[in-house]
């Protein structure tokens, strides 16, 4: 693990930039645990202060420091996004690989479920689930719901990769070497599926965060919890953009874009590193 990191840092400028960006924003988000004021507290500072030496990124119309709000918001939003992404990747990998490998009836059943999920309109379903769950709709539950809606298209991609791997001779060979289905999937096929997972994870993360923002903007989120969507929600409630309090929205968005840039660079460079073709080249094939 450490060696991989060292290799990537030393030989891949994209990774280095991505790593530095992501790390910086991660540390920044982590810092909210040491924030001078609780993130939920309001009107403890003078509102609407533009960026200055005292308030680097200004204050909100609710009398909060944008810097610390942002720190907590990025943390919470990423926590949500990553939970969605990881859960939905697990689902996508499980369904995609099993469906592709087992084929036949299993494939048909899983893909029918998959196609049904693809046809479900995300936003209405999420809103409906939100209505049903109401108070018990904490962010982990919302993340789980979003994850349930966000795996299906990628499961198809993974399935198609597995499908082509299934017909490779090494898979048949593995069967005759007595390997069990989990062994084949985990050891033989997963390395080929990994790049797909990484690639789709980025899009899924963006989707999840977009979802969070959408729900927040429509007013269906826990407004007590600082998130990127929550910041936009409150800025919106105070007509911040029209009122000229641009720093309330601009900085979180810039941070998110930088974070994604960082993650994207990480993803493509790590992808290159774990791509079987590149791995083989390194191994000298």
């Amino acid at each position, binding site marked *: 693990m450490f060696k991989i990191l060292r290799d990537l840092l030393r030989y891949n400028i994209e990774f280095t930039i991505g790593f530095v960006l992501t790390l910086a924003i991660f540390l920044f988000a982590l810092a909210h645990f040491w924030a001078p004021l609780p993130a939920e507290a309001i009107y403890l500072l003078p509102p609407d202060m533009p960026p200055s030496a005292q308030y680097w990124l200004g204050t909100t119309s609710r009398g909060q420091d944008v810097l610390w709000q942002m720190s907590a918001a990025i943390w919470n939003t990423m926590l949500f996004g990553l939970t969605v992404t990881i859960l939905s990747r697990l689902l996508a990998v499980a369904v995609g690989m099993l469906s592709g490998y087992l084929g036949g009836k299993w494939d048909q059943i899983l893909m029918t479920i998959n196609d049904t999920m693809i046809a479900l309109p995300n936003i209405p379903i999420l809103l409906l689930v939100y209505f049903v769950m109401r108070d018990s709709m904490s962010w982990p539950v919302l993340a789980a719901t979003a994850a349930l809606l966000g795996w299906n298209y990628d499961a198809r991609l993974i399935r198609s990769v597995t499908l082509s791997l299934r017909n490779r001779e090494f898979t048949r060979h593995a069967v005759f070497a007595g390997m069990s289905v989990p062994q084949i999937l985990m050891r033989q096929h997963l390395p080929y599926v990994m790049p797909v997972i990484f690639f789709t994870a980025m899009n899924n993360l963006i989707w999840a965060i977009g979802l969070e923002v959408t729900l927040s903007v429509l007013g269906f989120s826990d407004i*007590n919890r600082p998130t990127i969507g929550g910041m936009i929600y409150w800025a919106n409630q105070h*007509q911040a953009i029209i009122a000229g309090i641009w720093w309330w929205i601009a900085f979180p968005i810039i941070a998110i874009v930088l974070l994604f840039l960082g993650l994207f660079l990480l993803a493509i460079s790590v992808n290159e590193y774990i791509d079987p073709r590149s791995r083989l080249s390194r191994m000298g094939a």
Partner: protein
Amino acid sequence: MLIKKLAAAALAIAASVMPAAAQDFIAGIPRNEALIIQGPAAQNAEWFNLWAPGGGASNNGLQQLTADTFWFVNPEGTGDAAWTNALAADRPQYNDDFTEMTVPLKQGIYWSDGVEFTAEDVVYTVETQIANPGMNWSAPFTINVDSVEATDPYTVVFNLKEPNSRFHTLFTVRWNAAWIMPKHVFETVDDPLTYANNPPVSLSAYEMHSYDSAGNWVIWKLREDWERTSIGMDLESEPDVKYVVYRNAGNPDARVIEQMNHNLDVINDIAPEGMFTIARDAGENSAYWFPGYPFAHPDPTLPSVLFNHQNSKFQDKDVRWALALMIDIRAVAMGSYRGAANLAALSVPPTGTAVVDYYEPMQEWLTSFEIDTGARTIAPYDPTVAQQIAALVKPQWGDDIPDDPAQLAAMFGHGWWKQDIEAANELLEKAGLTKNGNQWLLPDGTPFTIRLMVEGDAIPTLARAGTILAQQWSMQGIQTTVDVAGPTNGQRLGAGDFEAAVYWTVETWGGHPDLSFFLESYHSDFIVEPGAVQPPRNLQRWQDERLDAIIEENRTVSFDSPEVVQLGMDYLKLAVEEMPFIPLMAYNKFAPFDTTYWTGYPSAENPYSASGPFWSNTRYMVVNLEANPNAPGAQAAQ
């Protein structure tokens, strides 16, 4: 390269589209003859039947400009000036035991299709609705009306099933009321519930011109025979406003932009910050309820902290009072309205006639009011709150803030309860609660926590107030979280599915001191089991024999009797003592007007009409506006 070609194509398209700005804003209608009002987004734009439960289409000018009924109360007015006889020629006439009401009608009023309006229309309206359950006023007619007859074409007599001194309020418009149906139209219809009534026949000064089937706008035009309407016959000259456009102008940001672009003359509601932006950037072209800060127009509704009295946490009035004393109302005012709030210590909105009828006379009583904290007796009322808030906002608003206490009281309210943490703690201890570190424990030893429900987006200022209240209580050791109920808010309130909420349960006529408007529904007869749906108003399920007594007595006195005010005060004192809910402030609405094309909007100075475009009273504003002679294109039109 391909990219360049694409760019060129895009530019060409853009060029053909750009002359947008040069075009008329509304096709074929001169801008300086049209008043543009913020309207709703209608789903069923084709639906113009006001009497069937057809959804929200009535805010598009239909009831504001074409419907009419007997009487109007101006929610902003005071005294007799607030009352208007519309279709009725006089005030309601009851018999002695309030079982019969006679209404004389004005003559010479015509529907827009030329048919004369008569008592037959009224009889038809009542009888048809009784015959068709589900129509909007069917239920109250069914309960109250034994029979209705037109003794002559201009007199209607209602025979009531039981005595009711407030029966006329069914036909008295504050926001709306039972509108009169065109008999000659509906009697040809099979089912009045599924009839779209498109185009609608108008009984008031405007009639439909055109509408958007996508629901974004409806345009009404002045009737040629505008003088043959109840509103028209009292006018001295033809209204300047020839067209009224109700348009859905989008979200609050878009509304502000549209007004600054002079595409939206009347805004119904925006956030305080949007208001300030307009005042800052378009001040010379706009008018407001107050000429400067705090700008806002107070609706006769009373945002309060509602406690669910069926929840054991809030059954002790000492707990309710403790929570009230933990509030720093200045922070609430600043956080929700940026200070621009009209505070209310009494359980009646501090607007219209309530100020002279209740707030001013009761100041003394409030100041001397005392409560027993268990340890001592305190006088919690602070009449100087308005000055304190004025001091807080003065740095930002400077000369907008007067020094005169009377003026300040009109802007910020008459006073509120002093924040008194010590007294609050004493009250909680008196109620059997104990404090463990910085956490209050209920008598049963569990932590005292509160879930405070707010609606959210639809009423943003109250959501903002909720977060501050939550913070204040949490800091005092009562962990409070804010729940955004969104569209389920009304229903959860109705079913008693909440602990505490920021919402209003008190609405008044505004222009009349009678409190039956909301108080009638506070009678304990209507309180239901937890979980069952409660009729509107008494959402906190407050039950008190003294309250029932006041309500029962109010039923027996006439609407205009001076006793009404006395009973009102009894109620208000009881409410202060019991603190069944914590009244916070009037529901202030930031509703700026663009004066580029129109002037003469209502204001605190001249409150001749409600200013909210959804209020049916708006019609009085529409016909009174004057074209701005300096408007673009005004000279050309002359």
